[in-house]
């Protein structure tokens, strides 16, 4: 089984794009806040994938360094975000985003 197709960086980019879109659509469609968070993680990963793909394509380590930082920030964000969700939804049984619309006009 020889590789008749050469996997260029474009493939990775398209994959990342699709992954990003899936995450974005999921963020818009799902109402469960935790699942919405997971969709955010999908989007972040798509971005990371793009960076690494470019690092490979441009033969520059900077892309990976950025991914490094993105990972750190994502971790921090998840920690704080989940803490927030816990704080807000502690007393509720359902965790739908639609229930929280107090800032609406």
């Amino acid at each position: 089984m020889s590789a008749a197709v050469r996997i260029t960086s474009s493939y990775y980019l398209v994959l990342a794009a699709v992954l990003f879109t899936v995450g974005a659509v999921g963020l818009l469609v799902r109402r469960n806040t935790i699942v919405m968070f997971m969709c955010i993680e999908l989007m972040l990963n798509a971005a990371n994938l793009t960076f690494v793909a470019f690092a490979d394509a441009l033969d520059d380590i900077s892309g990976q360094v950025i991914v490094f930082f993105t990972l750190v920030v994502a971790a921090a964000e998840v920690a704080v975000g989940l803490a927030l969700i816990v704080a807000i939804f502690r007393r509720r049984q359902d965790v739908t985003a639609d229930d929280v619309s107090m800032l609406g006009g």
Partner: protein
Amino acid sequence: MDARDLLHLAWVIPALPAAGAVVLLLAGRRIGEPRAGWLATTMMGLAFLASFVAFLALRSLPGEARVDVAANVSQGYTWMKVGGLSVDFRFLVDPLSSTMTLFITGVGTLIHAYAIGYMHGDARFSRFFAYLNLFAASMLVLVLGSGFVTTFMGWEGVGLCSYLLISFWFERESAAVAGKKAFVTNRIGDVGFLLAMFLIFRNLGSLGYGSLERAADLPGSTVTAIALLLFVGAVGKSAQFPLHIWLPDAMEGPTPVSALIHAATMVTAGVFLVARAHPFFEASAHAGTVVAWVGAFTALFAATVAIVQNDIKRVLAWSTVSQLGYMFLAAGIGAYTAAIFLMVVHAFFKALLFLGAGSVIHGLHEEQDMRRMGRLRALMPITAATFIIGWLAIAGVVPFAGFWAKDEVLAQAWFRGDYALWAVGLVGALFTAFYMTRQVMLVFFGNDRRDPEVHAHESPWIMLAPLGALAGLSLVGGAINLPFTTAGLDFLAHWLEPVFEGVPEPHASSFAQGFLLSTVALTVAVGGILIAVSVYRRGLSDPERDPVAERLGPLARVLENAYFVDAGIARLVSGPLSAFARFLAGPVDRDVVDGTVNAVGESTARLSGLVRRLQTGLVRNYALVVVLGAVLILLYVVVRATF
């Protein structure tokens, strides 16, 4: 300090009563009665002295120099300079304005003194004198102004003071209404004055009186327009038909007000204006005719109304309207000197008559209906005596002042060939003699119809002294302009000659002609007196039934209501105007204008309501919008990359 320097200080004349007014307005209550009255009177007296000094200074100049407009203006300042318009606030002393200031301040001082007695005990004593002084200051600004704008300032000022003083006892609704009526009617005339000023500026480039000499250069239609518009203003201010309606109602004001404003001074402002702006009237072919006929018509019209009036002041009010008509008659035909002469002597005897009437009213404790008077000669001898002198003056009996003046007016009409005007004036003189005699008979002679509760008494000396002074003036006032021209006794005519240069002054072709005309006038006057005496010799047997009114039948009612002019104006003018105003206030203002503004506000609110729905508070919606934006940017990039 030479004469010219004195003239430059002419601003002192109006400044004195103005200062009095300011002091009394600010501190009047503290100054109190009667010192406030004496302060005001003193100011007027000082103004009279200043006027006399100015008169002497002017007299010391040679004839031509007296009308040097550029040199004789007082100190002052440039009030406004806008574009091509430059308006100075300065005063001009020339023979005409000097004459005016003399009798305004002279008669004014006497009336101020009288008012100290008349207004005794009034709650707003000081305020009254503040207004009187303010009026005097405005009137002086009017006559002394060096240009149309300054005169107009005084014009408006006297209108304001007239309103304030007519409605002085504003607790009475009729007084408040009368004040408003006077002001509004005046204002209608003022529109004419303003329009005339616009035209004057447009055509002559300046609103100072110095520009009048160029009036003859303007096209005929322009001068006629200017003249007629100025006359409209005069009609309003001097209560000529059809804007005469405010003067009889103005009798609601205290009698000193009636005497000063509505007899001696303010109402003469219209005649003064015509005299001042005479170049326009001379240059126009027909404006003068209009003025003369309006005056003549008003003179006759008002005289007929006066014969059936029962209120002592109303008779005098209609009489004033009538006499003003004579003045306009004279001014219209170009006999300006005659008009001014009549104005001056009219100030004397009409003020006298009004003050006398005020004395009667005061003595009878506010009774004003002549049907409830009678036989007061014995109880109020001094009032009666002075009143009789005033009566003889206005009726035109020799040698009292009114005879010479009225005779001069009629004679001038004859000399200029206006025989129709002469005839109208003569008929008016007949009526004048009749109704004034009727008044004297009903008040001082005949039978005693007084309310038994009322105890009549003579007035205090402070009121009688001015009466005496005015009586004296009414007696000898004719001497300022006797028609014996060859003997040079027509002082006033000579004095005013430089002002009215270029205006023809016809005289009697012979002494016999003049004598004959005077005799005719005198006969008519005496005839009117005799008729009235015979009718009212015994007073009224029944107070409710006046013999003349009986004779006239239904016509009497027409005359009593002044030919229903007031009602006519209400139906034809005020009615539709009010309806129009209501229409504008209702459908137009409320619905259209306010509606538009409200609609703007409402649509904004509605729009914001719509936009507000974007703020759902739901995170997912906001995220949707973010993604939408990202997609749009992306599409933009793609499109740019493709094309």
